[in-house]
């Protein structure tokens, strides 16, 4: 029973990371119906940006007290902003001109952008895993017999907090409203006076910034990162987005946590070599039996 809860906590933390990445997939898909395969690499980039910023701050290990909040805060904001800018650049340079080119060309381009980012990161940080400082104190809190580290607590809090903020942003701000209108009917949105290009750019910024945040979180969680990290994590986050219902924010969060928990339990019960198989079996089953995903809504469209 104790191990069960330990795995659950681990799965939730892992799921928080997937959820943050999945949000970006789902936002971009929601607005331009593109599966942005480069998104997982933006997440890796987030961990490298975090490393650079931590280096600049002189952080190489555990940080205690208020300084932890300052250092982590600066790193997160910096990495998120940088990734957001990369996201805007990717959209501007690679996808925008393909907006009317059907679906295949942007998809192939996305795979191309992914390769480019992976290669750039390989040149920048080398082909092997890079150590990430263990910034969070290792103290384990005992919550009802289950050990929870400050790090796990921080991961879950960050993930959930970010999602609540995002929900608010999307539903209660002008830009969020423009985003949803653009996702639903781009031309009608234009007729409302909405600048579609700016709205799509902002969507890439937000999605990529969340990936940057996830990059920091995963670096701190695993205390390591490497240029190819985003491939696997991206695929799992994509699975999470599909499981929850692609284009649906709440679905991405739910899918992320579910995939994290399932992966964690699969690793525990079946062994690590089975975790990927389990996750991708879920992807296939979702696509076959419930292509709209768990929260994929069927809306009444009147003609």
């Amino acid at each position: 029973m104790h191990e069960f809860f330990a795995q659950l906590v681990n799965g939730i933390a892992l799921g928080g990371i997937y959820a943050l990445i999945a949000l970006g997939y789902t936002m971009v898909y929601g607005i331009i119906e593109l599966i942005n395969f480069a998104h997982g690499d933006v997440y890796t980039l987030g961990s490298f940006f975090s490393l650079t910023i931590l280096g600049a701050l002189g952080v190489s290990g555990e940080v205690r007290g208020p300084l932890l909040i300052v250092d982590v805060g600066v790193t997160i904001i910096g990495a998120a902003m940088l990734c957001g800018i990369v996201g805007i650049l990717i959209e501007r340079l690679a996808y925008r001109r393909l907006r009317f080119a059907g679906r295949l060309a942007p998809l192939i381009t996305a795979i191309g952008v992914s390769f480019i980012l992976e290669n750039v990161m390989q040149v920048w940080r080398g082909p092997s895993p890079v150590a990430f400082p263990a910034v969070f104190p290792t103290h384990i809190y005992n919550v009802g017999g289950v050990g929870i580290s400050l790090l796990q607590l921080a991961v879950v809090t960050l993930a959930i907090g970010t999602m609540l903020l995002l929900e608010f942003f999307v539903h209660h701000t002008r830009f969020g409203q423009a985003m949803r209108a653009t996702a639903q009917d781009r031309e009608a949105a234009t007729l409302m006076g909405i600048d579609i290009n700016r709205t799509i750019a902002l969507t890439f910024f937000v999605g990529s910034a969340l990936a940057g945040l996830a990059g920091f979180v995963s670096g701190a969680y695993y205390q390591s990162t490497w240029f190819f990290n985003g491939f696997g994590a991206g695929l799992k986050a994509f699975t999470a987005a599909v499981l929850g219902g692609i284009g649906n924010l709440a679905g991405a969060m739910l899918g992320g946590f579910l995939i994290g928990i399932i992966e964690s339990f699969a690793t525990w019960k079946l062994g690590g070599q089975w975790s990927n198989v389990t996750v991708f079996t879920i992807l296939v089953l979702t696509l076959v039996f419930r292509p709209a995903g768990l929260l994929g809504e069927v809306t009444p469209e009147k003609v």
Partner: protein
Amino acid sequence: MSTSAAGSMLDVRDLVVRYGGVTALHGCSLHVDTGEIVALLGGNGAGKTTMLRSISGLVRPASGSVAFLGRSLSGTAPFNIARSGLVHAPEGRRIFTRMTIRENLDLGAYAVRSRQEADRRRQEVLSIFPRLQERLDQSAGTLSGGEQQMLAIGRALMAGPQLLLLDEPSLGLAPLFVQTIFKVIREINERGTAVLLVEQNARAALHIAARAYLLENGCIVREASAEAMLDDPSVVAAYLGA
């Protein structure tokens, strides 16, 4: 009767629009003056929607010009055209069915920065369409076709248009709704908004319009006052079902 285009609110000259190899408009000119309702009539595929879409910038013409309030719109992004007071309620209503009625209306006033002004306009629109009032926070997808059309027009009004382009607002509506829609268009016009109205329901359109154009196969074949059109046997035969 032929009126002059100089100094008109909307001045469309020699517009040519092609879709690939197909020419949809062969050099059309029309104008709308301040405070007017102008009807644009024509059969299926004549090019009416294409005309409205070129005016609001959704379609780029091969040649010709569109000027609004004396300024050329060539090269102006469609979202900026919408912000300049030239508002297009497109064919098929195109409301945001996954959003609430309130959100749809608010999006109509997207360019309006002041909250109070948007609230004031919403109250005004709701006084024209009281049916929408009761259902403000319901999803727009739950509205009937006629109610959706009201929402589409109400949403366009939220932008505070000086000129409203309406593409077949009465299409597919029950007779009672059709009456309401035409009454509302007249009301909107009386409050000072000029209207360029595309309609299949030619008789009703001519009853509220000051002038009308007939569009056939991408060419404007006739321009006349609405009365003259209603009195013309050839127009009656072709568009008014005798």
